[in-house]
């Protein structure tokens, strides 16, 4: 039998089915709690959520399939150096310091729903209103795709079905359940299911730590085993080389500036019931990387010591391989893995449903309402948003199945990187724009365009890759130079620049 497969018996399958039905039930409850047919009610849960729900929805949204599969897979490949992930997940909360207090206050005053509502309020610039939502939808689409692929891979490890069939069933079944509960309850369903998923995720990470200690002799044994291995594996316990250190710095910067602008996280800043709720949730969030990313790293490193020889996208399955080993050891191990697997599904689905809801809100409000049908009513928009979710997920699920059929499958961390290269280009508009009055819409727009051109123009540049820094950071540098230079330009020149297209027309 394939060692990355851990088929569940009827007991485990029944538990998982109950868990998935529970998610649907919560979605139904979310639908019953609906106050009206407004966009704010559907996408932000009306007047907002309290501390426990906000914390768990932020947690379940930010820690995803990438954390469970991608981070453990990357730690398998590079070793302890991937505690980079602990640093960059902390950097996300530090990034919030630059804009979250102001954004939350403005969102309460002006009833923002989508991230672009702030940009529109701040700059009133048509170009930004077109490019920024499209950029965020593409970045989130990429993230949603990664979650769907991880769902397929998760089910591949669960059954004895042919791997290709199991992958398709995983993608279609789990995405379908998500769509149903989201359609019923909108943000409430997503946030409330996140509470269940967040709790199970926390239990899952605790179980992982327990398993590593009991099943594989603890981290000390793992460290020694790797020190005594061949050079290729020994390097996984040594400090990173200069290139690795630069990459480490690059991850901190791109996550601190890019991941803090996750559109679904920005919407949770809006959805906080009060400043106190948001502040206290962020205080709790800042300690969670030490309890989640670090555990994922230990799983990957333990796998590197005990299951050598995996490479490429196979390494993203290391968690499944470890689970299978534990599952076969005892009845207790079996049930621990069942709960852990529920946590994995929770991590995947909670992130994917948040992405889906945010994509739907941005497409409906930022693009359809603003540019196509400004006279649409709120209930029409809410109805349209629900069906847009089905369309988007349908297309991405098809793409996820196509990507799995390729001989060279992309790893989860590679997909993650692409998203941040794009999102980080919005940092000047949000972070600088929150504090610097002189920054204006035309400057932000051309900075954004320049940043994107530089990022994608340099994508295959070997020198850039050899520096260890993300392409997006070079784009951001160009973006900042353009945005600041244009904003500092004397007013007469600036007016000429702003009005030239109109005159030409």
């Amino acid at each position, binding site marked *: 039998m394939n060692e990355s497969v851990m088929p569940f018996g009827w007991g485990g399958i029944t538990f998982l089915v109950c868990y998935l039905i529970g998610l649907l039930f919560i979605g139904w409850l979310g639908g019953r709690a609906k106050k009206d047919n407004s966009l704010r009610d559907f996408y932000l849960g009306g007047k907002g959520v309290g501390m426990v729900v906000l914390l768990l929805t932020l947690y379940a949204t930010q820690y995803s399939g990438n954390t469970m599969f991608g981070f453990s897979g990357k730690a398998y490949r590079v070793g*302890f150096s991937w*505690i980079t992930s*602990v*640093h960059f997940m*902390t950097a996300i*909360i*530090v990034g919030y*310091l*630059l*804009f979250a*207090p*102001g954004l939350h*206050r*403005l969102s*309460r*005053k*002006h*009833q923002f729903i989508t991230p672009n509502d702030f940009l529109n*309020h*701040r*700059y*009133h610039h048509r170009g930004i209103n077109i490019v920024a939502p499209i950029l965020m939808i593409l970045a989130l689409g990429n993230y949603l795709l990664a979650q769907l692929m991880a769902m397929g891979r998760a089910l591949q490890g669960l059954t004895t079905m042919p791997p290709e069939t199991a992958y398709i069933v995983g993608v279609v079944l789990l995405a379908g359940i998500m769509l149903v509960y989201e359609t019923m309850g909108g943000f409430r369903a997503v946030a409330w299911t996140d509470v269940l998923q967040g709790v199970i995720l926390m239990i899952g990470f605790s179980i992982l730590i327990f398993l590593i200690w009991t099943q594989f002799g*603890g*981290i*000390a*044994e793992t*460290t020694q085993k790797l*020190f005594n291995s061949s050079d290729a594996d020994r390097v996984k*316990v*040594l*400090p*990173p*080389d*200069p290139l690795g*250190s630069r990459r*480490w*710095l690059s991850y*901190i910067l791109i996550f601190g500036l890019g991941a803090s602008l996750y559109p679904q996280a920005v919407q949770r800043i809006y959805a906080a019931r*009060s*400043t*106190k709720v948001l*502040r206290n949730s*962020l*205080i709790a969030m*800042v*300690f969670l*990387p*030490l309890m989640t990313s*670090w555990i994922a790293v230990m799983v990957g490193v333990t796998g590197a010591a005990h299951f050598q020889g995996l490479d490429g996208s196979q390494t993203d399955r290391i968690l499944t391989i470890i689970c299978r080993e534990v599952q076969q050891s005892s009845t207790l191990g079996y049930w621990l893995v069942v709960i852990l697997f529920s946590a994995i599904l929770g991590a995947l689905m909670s992130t994917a449903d948040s992405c889906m809801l945010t994509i739907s809100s941005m497409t409906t409000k930022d693009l359809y309402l603003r540019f196509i049908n400004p006279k649409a009513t709120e209930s029409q928009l809410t109805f349209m948003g629900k069906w847009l979710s089905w369309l988007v997920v349908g297309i991405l699920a098809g793409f996820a199945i196509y990507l799995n059929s390729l001989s060279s499958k992309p790893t989860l961390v590679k997909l993650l990187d692409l998203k941040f290269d794009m999102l980080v280009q919005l940092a000047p508009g949000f972070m600088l724009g*929150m*504090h610097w*009055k002189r920054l*204006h819409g035309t400057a932000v727009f051309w900075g954004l365009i320049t940043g994107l051109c530089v990022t994608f123009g340099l994508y295959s540049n070997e020198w850039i890759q050899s520096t260890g820094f993300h392409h997006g950071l070079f784009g951001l540098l160009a973006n900042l130079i353009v945005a600041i230079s244009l904003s500092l330009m004397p007013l007469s020149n600036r007016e000429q620049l702003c009005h030239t297209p109109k005159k030409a027309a």
Partner: protein
Amino acid sequence: MSAESTPSSTGIDLSGKRLFLSWWIWVVYSILMVVGIPWYWPAQYEGTLFGLPTWTLCSLAASFVASCFTAWLLMTRWPVESVENDLPVSEKNHS
């Protein structure tokens, strides 16, 4: 820091948002980053502490300090605003 509203030329209220922009805050984060990224350890360093490579523990300690520092900043520098400030513009006009 003043929390009064002073709309800018763009019409947006930018006051009261510079809670975390003091230079020393970002100096502290920079120092923690320099300590946390293990660039200064010898390439073949094999020392361990509590079963982990020493450089790993050092890096994790820097991350823990950064978390504590951030929590402290959030607690002490982000005032919990009045309910009035949290109200939508439309509701304020009615009241």
